[in-house]
């Protein structure tokens, strides 16, 4: 019986490219958010509210990840900020090489804050480092308060949680305190925001926090 020792990380290729992205980002003093959620939690709506709130204060750019269509990029076109669409053609997550290729379309010297909207999926994107400064996980009240317990890796690896659609709380079976407790049990240092992209509740708190994360350029 002969055995060949390998001892290599399965995703080493992705991790190497992610490290290159991270170096590029830090060289340009960019704050990069990898935004993850289930489909339909409101990632693009949160982006719209964020651009409306922060667009005049910070230089924003967006990478849109979708399985099919460029509908989301079209939605953001009216804000006249740099947006690049990645269509994964069935792929359930973004990988570092896709982001690396997308970056060639930006003038990174003119960007302070890059938000990468990942494909709607709470499982697969947890494994793929893109080189981001921070993962932000978004979920909506309609998804139920047990979501963090079902997808612990994503909540453990994120720096912030945005609970969206709080305006629907009276109509859905979701207990906000239970939800927060479930999330904090997995990640006690998670920064939590409660928002509604419809009523704009909580948007300024989220944006103010995000803005103070962005390095001030000399």
């Amino acid at each position, binding site marked *: *019986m*002969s*055995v*060949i*020792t*390998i*001892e*290599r*990380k*399965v*995703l*080493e*290729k*992705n991790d190497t490219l992610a490290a290159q992205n991270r170096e590029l980002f830090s060289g340009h003093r960019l704050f990069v958010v990898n935004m993850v959620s289930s489909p339909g939690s409101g990632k693009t709506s949160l982006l719209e509210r964020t651009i409306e709130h922060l667009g005049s204060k910070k230089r924003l750019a967006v990478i849109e990840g979708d399985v099919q269509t460029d509908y989301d990029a079209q939605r953001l076109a009216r804000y006249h900020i740099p947006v690049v669409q990645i269509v994964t053609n069935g*792929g*359930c*997550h973004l*990988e570092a090489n896709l982001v690396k290729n997308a970056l060639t379309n930006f003038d990174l010297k003119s960007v302070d804050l890059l938000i990468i909207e990942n494909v709607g999926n709470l*499982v*697969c994107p*947890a*494994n*793929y480092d893109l080189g981001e400064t921070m993962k932000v996980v978004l979920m909506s009240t309609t998804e139920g308060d047990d979501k963090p*317990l079902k997808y*612990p*890796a994503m909540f*453990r690896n994120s720096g912030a949680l945005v609970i969206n659609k709080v305006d629907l709380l009276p109509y859905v079976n979701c207990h906000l305190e239970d939800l927060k407790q479930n999330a904090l*049990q*997995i*990640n*006690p240092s998670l920064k939590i925001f409660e928002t509604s992209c419809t009523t704009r509740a909580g948007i300024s708190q989220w944006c103010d926090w995000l803005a103070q994360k962005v390095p001030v350029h000399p």
Partner: protein
Amino acid sequence: MHELSIAQNILEIVQQSLPPEPAPPVKCVRLKIGEMAGVVTDSLEFCFSVLISDTTMGGAKLEIESVPVMANCKTCGNDFRVEDYVFACPSCSSSDLEVLSGRELQVVEVELADEKVEVA
């Protein structure tokens, strides 16, 4: 379904590690997968078997060692297994922890099949 992409990465790593042509038959590939790596092992095994079916590795099995989520408490120094994703020390309740394991996704080794030459 990122298991297909993970299976492709595993296949690539194994092929790079095998001696040059003719590649020896592979009996099994041993992996370490953390409980919090977010990988469905049944699905990974299926994807891997499909990928290798037309290669010289056809028939090779995956042997997966599951790695528990372990943490070290920075307050009292206790090492413990994280159960049900409760990230708090069972002895002092502190949540100031360093996670030691549980996110592994590693190709450990391959075992080659013994080639027995039957003489007719």
